[in-house]
């Protein structure tokens, strides 16, 4: 090869470079806009398993029936892959018209600041949503006086228990910490390997415990102090709360291997009667009703009793999911109409309530509704304690995503004894400060005004 003139090598290099440059120029943007067909197509993305049929998808279908000129395509994406799929899609302009994701200060900040969420204030006022959505929900789904998302449900977390097992062992519904501990001890003695089910392998169930305990020990004011004020997660009451969680695990109340237990597996065992009780939320009711029907009456609920004598019972309350409209959607009005149909039409709200799938936000007309027994119990319980104030149900949906990983791994480490509660709270505080400094925490806004 050395006999070949150098010019050939140079020429070859040139060719490769030419290809490189050609390849680096992106093709002309496709001319595809919505074609002239009569149907307006609306794409909705929701978190969940593909092929899920829930009340939302059913309501979307009935909207389609009533509005034949609209075609709705609902896609379910697994929740841990939801944001990773959504963000590039929004960026690329190939995102859905409507998407359901997190709310609260942390998560959607990036989406909103990048301008991909449509300002819904106009629809909020015109459709009269302002008379239905409670203030606290508006606060978590808006900023700068603009509404960004429709909160789809109010979720609460509390204990679900198996009536039969409790009855068989003569166990009362605990109303004090001592009673709670003695109940769990009795269950353990009765041979239940896992007295309280905890799907720690999936990480987020532990954070539900953490959120509830932190709220209980700090009270709603204490929580707001940190979220919107100068408070710190390293204050005594928060550390004490983490320690309680660790102590519950050390006593074996979550079974010998909570980190190996997958949430879905644990819930299946619960509904089968192998696990006496678990701490989870209202989102399980819909599936339970669909799977067990009347048999859900064999299960009941109760609130975590006060952990110290001076504590109150604060029911937990968080928005389930926020529904956003893509700012780049070619049919925002249709999308808003669909949201109005699903969440604010009285018949829809009744359907959502009765399925047990969700508890829609806002005032509920309970009289004409035929609720699953579990839902009724939950409402009754909240009614009793609501006056005490409420605490968030889950931090992980309202905090920035870097905090979520630290929370998840840290909680597993605390349960495994690899991290002390003090260390955990310190890590959370450090991440919180970092997020605040970077502005990834959305500042809460006041109410959204309609003039």
């Amino acid at each position, binding site marked *: 090869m050395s006999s070949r003139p150098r010019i050939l090598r140079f020429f070859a290099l040139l060719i490769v470079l030419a290809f*490189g440059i050609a390849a680096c120029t992106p093709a002309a943007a496709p001319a595809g806009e919505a074609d002239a067909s009569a149907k307006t197509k609306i794409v909705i993305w929701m978190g969940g398993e593909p092929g899920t049929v829930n009340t939302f998808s059913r309501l979307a279908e009935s909207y389609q029936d009533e509005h034949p000129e609209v075609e709705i395509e609902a896609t379910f994406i697994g929740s841990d892959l939801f944001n990773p799929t959504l963000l590039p899609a929004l960026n690329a302009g190939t995102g859905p018209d409507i998407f359901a994701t997190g709310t609260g200060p942390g998560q959607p900040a990036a989406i909103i600041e990048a301008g991909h969420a449509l300002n819904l204030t106009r629809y909020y006022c015109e459709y009269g949503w302002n008379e239905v959505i409670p203030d606290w929900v508006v606060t978590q789904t808006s900023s700068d006086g603009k509404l960004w998302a429709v909160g789809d449900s109010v979720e609460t977390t509390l204990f679900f228990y198996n009536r039969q097992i409790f009855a068989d062992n003569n166990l009362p519904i605990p109303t004090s910490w001592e009673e709670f501990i003695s109940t769990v001890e009795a269950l353990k003695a009765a041979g239940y390997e896992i007295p309280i089910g905890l799907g*720690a392998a999936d990480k987020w169930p532990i954070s539900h415990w953490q959120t509830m305990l932190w709220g209980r020990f700090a009270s709603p004011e204490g929580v707001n102090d940190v979220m919107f004020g100068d408070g710190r997660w390293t204050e005594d009451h928060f550390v004490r709360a983490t320690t309680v969680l660790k102590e519950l695990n050390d006593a074996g109340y979550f079974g010998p291997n909570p980190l*190996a237990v997958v949430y879905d597996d644990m819930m299946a065992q619960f509904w089968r009667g192998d696990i006496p009780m678990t701490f989870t939320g209202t989102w399980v009711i819909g599936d339970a009703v669909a799977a067990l029907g009347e048999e859900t009456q064999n299960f009941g609920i109760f609130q975590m009793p006060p952990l110290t004598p001076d504590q109150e019972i604060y029911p937990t309350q968080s928005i389930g999911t926020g529904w956003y409209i893509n700012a780049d959607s070619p049919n925002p009005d249709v999308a808003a109409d669909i949201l109005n149909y699903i969440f604010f039409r009285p018949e829809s709200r009744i359907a959502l309530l009765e399925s047990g799938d969700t508890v829609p936000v806002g005032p509920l007309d309970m009289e004409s509704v035929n609720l699953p027994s579990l839902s009724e119990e939950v409402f009754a319980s909240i009614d009793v304690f609501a006056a005490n104030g409420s605490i968030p149900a889950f931090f992980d949906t309202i905090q920035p995503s870097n905090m979520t990983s630290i929370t998840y791994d840290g909680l597993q480490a605390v349960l495994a004894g690899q991290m002390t509660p003090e260390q955990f709270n310190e890590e959370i505080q450090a991440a919180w400060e970092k997020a605040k400094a970077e502005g990834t925490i959305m500042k809460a806004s006041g109410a959204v005004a309609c003039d």
Partner: protein
Amino acid sequence: METIEQNWRLKGRGGALSERTRQRWIRYLVAYLFILPALLLYVTFVLRPTIEVFVLSLYKWNGISATREWQGLANFQLLMTDKIFWQALRNNLIWLVVILFFNVVIGLMAAALLSMDIKGRVIFRLGYFLPVVQASIVTAMIWRWIYNPDGLLNNALKAMGLGGLARGWLGDFTWALPALAVAAGWAGFGMSVVLLLAGMQSIDQSLYDAARVDGANYPQTFRYVTIPGLRNVITIVILLAMQGAFQVFDIIWATTEGGPIRATEMLATYMFKKGIMENEYGYGSAVAVVLAIIILGFAITNITLRERGDE
């Protein structure tokens, strides 16, 4: 390639200079044309994104805003002090050790035994190779089921009276990683057996004959004839294992997602989490760059060793 050279020289002597040059350039053009489709695809969809990853690692970007913050090498500096990064690297190395055990030790043993006068060798080869053709998600699902606290492994241990060893494998901080690595070893050793067997067949028979004349028994023959003859293939097996061990993603993602407490965090999953799930695309790209450099290092070693071995 002598024939082609002779060809061209033949034609050269026969025709005029310009005719010969013209023919040559036509042949070059045709060659480039043949390569064109592959090259275009490769440059656009592999090379360009690779360069972009290197570029992106110098910025901070949340994946969605229109602007990117210049970081210089700050991401890499951060990486050096990142506990989780080093843990992930360590995990990849542990994975490598387990995979090497399966591919080299077990693979060699199986290949050695199979190369003896075995009836039904085809069945063995087939059986060992079946796990290799399974999708990684299938391997993950099956082994997750085996490792379930109530699954095959624990039940088998209990049945053998070893119930004390039973545990929640994938939730155990110490055992989750080796457990998953065993699953990957299961899915890979068959490939190694096949490669080694093929390599054995290409060893010169006369060497074996010489050994027999010298009075060597089987283990000695194996050590002094087979293994040296397999040197090339063993190198390839080792380097394939290295590449595979550092690219692991699917099987982790489908089972533990890096848990519990980062016990199974790999470089690829960390990159995915940090970059895509936490919207730190710049930092994630930095991890990707390190990953690519490590794998490139192994690949270069592969080529160099093989070139040297060919002599």
